[in-house]
């Protein structure tokens, strides 16, 4: 039998890093930039958060460090794709390679390949209440971050500017908006969110760092953002769907009634369900007008 409340609780935990990172990616893609640095930013966010928390004993400082790192990673993407106009695929994948490599390299220099320490991590709020027993960062994501980004994109001048530079940078420029500054801001803000998503893994879920910590979650977010058609709440929905199916399959594989189904098929379910959901709803996507296009005034 499957415990529905536990399932929802598990879904929320697994969805949280995706929610942070996908929200960050919505922000950058709305500004017209595909940030494939997402996987590396999550990874480095997880590592830097862990590192600072381990050195200072405070997960909050760890989180702060991750946010700073995310901002820096965003700025690096900005330098590459906004200032220099480098191909966004190359810049993003290169950034991911660099951030993962640099994290692992630093980890090796500092810890010499040995086992890592367990840090003082974030605790659960309402640990004994089903579903509500979540990490504070999950609450922050759902109550503060996502509504804030949604409001930002929808109802603020900054949001209007982000959308304008993502759709038609010429028009934004003609209206006196700095395309570069706006894109940098989106990248840096988005980077901070991606890093926070990664840091959630080390600072809340596991309390330590291991190699491969993000394990492709960033790539999943890229898919979720397109799935969500560049809107914040649907991205959250997509994250919950993916995490929910994942949580479900983890229960099913240990439920005797389902033992006949190949384990690998179960593990593939979250991916297949998202594809199916997209196929059921995803006709005729309209990408942001300036997606993948560098802007340079003549």
């Amino acid at each position: 039998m499957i415990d529905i409340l536990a399932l929802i609780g598990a879904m929320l935990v697994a969805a949280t890093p995706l929610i942070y990172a996908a929200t960050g990616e919505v922000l950058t893609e709305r500004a017209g930039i595909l940030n494939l640095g997402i996987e590396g930013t999550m990874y480095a966010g997880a590592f830097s958060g862990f590192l600072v928390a381990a050195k200072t004993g405070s997960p909050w400082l760890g989180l702060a460090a991750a946010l700073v790192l995310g901002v820096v990673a965003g700025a690096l993407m900005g330098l590459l794709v906004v200032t220099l106009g480098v191909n966004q695929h190359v810049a993003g994948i290169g950034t991911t390679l660099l951030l993962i490599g640099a994290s692992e390299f630093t980890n090796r220099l500092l810890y010499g390949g040995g086992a890592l320490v367990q840090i003082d991590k974030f605790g659960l709020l309402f640990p004994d209440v089903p579903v509500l027993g979540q990490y504070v960062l999950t609450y922050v994501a759902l109550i503060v971050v996502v509504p804030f980004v949604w409001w930002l994109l929808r109802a603020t001048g900054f949001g209007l500017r982000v959308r304008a530079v993502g759709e038609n940078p010429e028009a934004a420029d003609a209206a006196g908006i700095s395309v570069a500054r706006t894109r940098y801001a989106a990248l840096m803000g988005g980077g901070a969110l991606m890093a926070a998503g990664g840091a959630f893994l080390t600072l809340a879920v596991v309390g330590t760092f291991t190699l491969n910590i993000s394990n492709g979650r960033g790539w999943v977010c890229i898919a979720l953002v397109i799935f969500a058609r560049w809107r914040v709440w649907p991205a959250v929905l997509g994250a919950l769907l993916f995490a929910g199916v994942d949580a479900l399959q983890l229960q099913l594989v240990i439920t005797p009634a389902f033992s006949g189904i190949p384990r690998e098929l179960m593990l593939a379910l979250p991916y297949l369900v998202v594809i199916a959901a997209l196929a059921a709803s995803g006709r005729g996507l309209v990408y942001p007008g300036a997606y993948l296009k560098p802007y340079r005034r003549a």
Partner: protein
Amino acid sequence: GGNTGTTTASSPAAGASAGASTTAKPLVYGAYATPIEEPWDGVIHRALQAAADKGDITYKHVDNIGYAGGMERTLRDIAANDKPAVVFGDAFGNEAAVRKVAKDFPAIAFAFGSGEKEQAPNLSVFDNWIHDPAYLAGMLAGGTTKSNVLGVVGGYPVPEVNRIVNAFIGGAQSVNPKVQVKVSFINTWFDPAKGKQAAQAQIAQNADVLFAERAGVIEAAKEKGLRSIGAMADQKSQGPDSVMTSLLWDMGPTVQAVLQQVRDGKYVGANLKDYSFLKNGGSSLAELNTAVKGGIPADLMAKVTAKQAELKSGSFTTPVDEKTPAGSTEIK
């Protein structure tokens, strides 16, 4: 610079005979497919590092060689240029490459983690035969569960992992015939968040003692105030209230055996698995942590200690079963 660079003994006591012993000290090379942060290769690395620290060997290593042809290249480079006395490493996923190079350099001793047979004249194989402590850990788990449901989270259902999990199940059932074991494989060596999630799914299905073959599981147990069992290193510090014990694999005896053979000029390719057995000190159960919540019943501890003695004396051998365990073991 971390663990990089050549590591030789540097104890002041060794200073007197330094001149003689450095030339006599054999060069041992570690060649690992995964990064040494991965526990499996990490155990080999640490054992060799310890030997170097003791002043027995000069130790160098290369890790994260991968599975795309780098192993053969690196081994040939090592063999041809560094001419070490021994090369340790893991051959999983690079079996053919390791065997080819070993054949081409018969003067060098190759000792590799492998699921296959040794190869004459110079390739020895070993594996993490920690099914003995796994059996004992199973007894502890089976004896302390209240719900009669245990959870195991593993990486991949490969023989060595299956062997451990099945031994664990066997141990648990030996003390508690009603016990049921939930086994999840997360299909990755590294993803503690996923490991924790799998453990939580087991907890949701009433598991109350968890065996952490992979990272993340202890976290799940800790948060729910449940008991857990660690692996590869003593993980008590990760959860002093939760971790009853850990399965330890010590490559020390294996390393020492190989070094001795080399020193004596008697090295031949062999299966070194016995050196990992509990009775040879290659694997063990970490000191029981009676400080876990609820403690460990004394009679259970006695049973485990007795079984451990039987294992040591050879009057009991843990059954070896390398079949993939079912996701949920039925009560027989």
